[in-house]
C-alpha cells in the first residue's frame, strides 16, 4: 500500500506573484510529496473546497498582499464549515513580526518569511504530520 503526503499550496488574495508559492511547491515535490497547486487569487471557499476534494493532509498558504489577518480567519471559517478545522495550516509570505503570534493564535501552525529555506518547510510538515 502506497501512502503519500498530500499538500495543498494555495495563493489566496489579490496580489499577482506566485513565484514563492511555486518554489515551495517544487521543493515539496522534490521531498516526495504530492502537491496540489491551485494558482493565483483563490477565494477562501476555493481553498477549502480544494482541500476537501483532494483530501489533503496539510495546507500551505502564500500571502504577500498584506491581507493575511483578514484572509486567514475566513479560510479557517470555510474549513470548519466542511469539518476540516483540524487540518494543519502554514503560511508563507511577507508577514510583519507582530502579526506572527496573532496568526498562530488563530491556529496557523507556522509562519515562514522571505528567505526561509525550503528544508525548514519540509521539516515542519514532516513534524506536524508525525511522519
Amino acid at each position, binding site marked *: 500500500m502506497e501512502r503519500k503526503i498530500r499538500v495543498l499550496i494555495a495563493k489566496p488574495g489579490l496580489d499577482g506573484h506566485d513565484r514563492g508559492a511555486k518554489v515551495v511547491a517544487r521543493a515539496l*515535490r522534490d*521531498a516526495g510529496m504530492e502537491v496540489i497547486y491551485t494558482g493565483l487569487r483563490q477565494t477562501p*471557499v*476555493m481553498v477549502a473546497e480544494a482541500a476537501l*476534494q483532494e483530501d489533503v*493532509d496539510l495546507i500551505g498558504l502564500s500571502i504577500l498582499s498584506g491581507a493575511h489577518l483578514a484572509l486567514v480567519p475566513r479560510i479557517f471559517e470555510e474549513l470548519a464549515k466542511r469539518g476540516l478545522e483540524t487540518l494543519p495550516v502554514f503560511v508563507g509570505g511577507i508577514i510583519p513580526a507582530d502579526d506572527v503570534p496573532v496568526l498562530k493564535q488563530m491556529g496557523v501552525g507556522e509562519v515562514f518569511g522571505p528567505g526561509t529555506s525550503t528544508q525548514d518547510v519540509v521539516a515542519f510538515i514532516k513534524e506536524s*504530520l508525525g511522519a
Partner: protein
Amino acid sequence: MLSSRKAWGLDLGLESAALAGDRRALARLLSHVENGAAEGRAALAALFSRTGRAHIIGITGSPGAGKSTLVGKLAQEIRAYGRRLAIVAVDPTSPFSGGALLGDRLRMRELASDEGVFIRSMASRGHPGGIAHATRDVVLLLDAIGFPVVIVETVGAGQAQVEVARVAHTVVLVEAPGMGDDVQALKAGLMEIADIIVVNKADRPEAKQTVRALQFVRRDMGSAGHHGAGALQPATEPVVLGWDPPILQTAAIESQGISELWDAIQAHRRYLEESGAWDVLRKRHARAEVESWLQRHLMLLLEERIGELRMNEAVDRVLRREQDPATAARNLLGAALEPDRDPIA
C-alpha cells in the same frame, strides 16, 4: 497512519455517508482506493453493483495542448444542463523523488466553488500508461456514488500512453498547433484510440495546418484504423465500425467550440448505445479488468508460495550460469504448483 488522518470514528460509515452526499467522506474513500487500502477495496466490492451508469469520457493528448482548460470549459457546459460531474486529473509522478506537482486544477478555477463538480487530482505513481494504476478504481467509485458523467484527464501523453481507452467510453484526443505536428507518431497510437479529435488553440492561425495534417492522417488510416475506446481488445474480437472520428476545433480559453464538442461527445454516446457498441465495450472493459486482477492475484500467490529463499537460489543458479532464466522460472513455477508440497518449506 499520519496523525492528521485521525480515525474517522465511523470508518465503516464512510460508504453510506459518501452515498448520502457527504463529499468529505467521498474524498477520504477516494484516498483509500488510491492507496490500495483495505477500506478502499471493501468499499469497491460493496458498491460495485451500483456502477455501470456513468458516461466516462477520457481526455488525452500532448502535454500543454490545453486539456485541463478544455475540461474546465466542458464541465461548465455540462453544468449548464444541471448535471453533476466528477473530474479525475492525472499528472506525472517524478521518477526521482516520487513526489508530484498536480497542477490541472489551476486551469479549472471557474469550477472551484461549484459543489456540483468534484475534482480529484491524481499522481501517476510510476504507472506508465498515461493514467495511474488506481485511476480505474477511482472512476468506479465516482460512478457508484452516482456522478452521471466522469471525465478523466490523462498525463500529457505520447503515442504509447493509450491506457485511458481501457477506462473510458469516449476518448477525446486534444492536440494544438505546433506540438502534435509530429503526426506520424500520432498515427501509431493515440489516433487509433480517439473517438473525437480536437485541435485546440484554434485562435492561432497555424491551427488550420494542424487540422489539415490530422485530416490527412485520418484519411490515410481509413475507418479500419479506428478502434475508439475499444482499441485494446483482444485481436480476435471484431472491431465495431460505423463511427468516423470527427475533427473539431476549439479555443478553450475563449470558450469557443465547447458546445460543439459536447454535442459530439453525446452523439458518440448515442452511437455506442444504438449500434450495440456500448455492450461490446463494457464486455471488453470487464474482461480486461478481470484479467488484470487475475494477474495481480496470481503474482501475489506465486510470490507467497515460492518464497524469498527459493527465489534467491534460482537467481544464484542463473548468476552462476548453471541455468538460464526461463528454465529457472519454469522450475520455480513447477515447484509452486505441486499439490502436496510441505506448506512449511
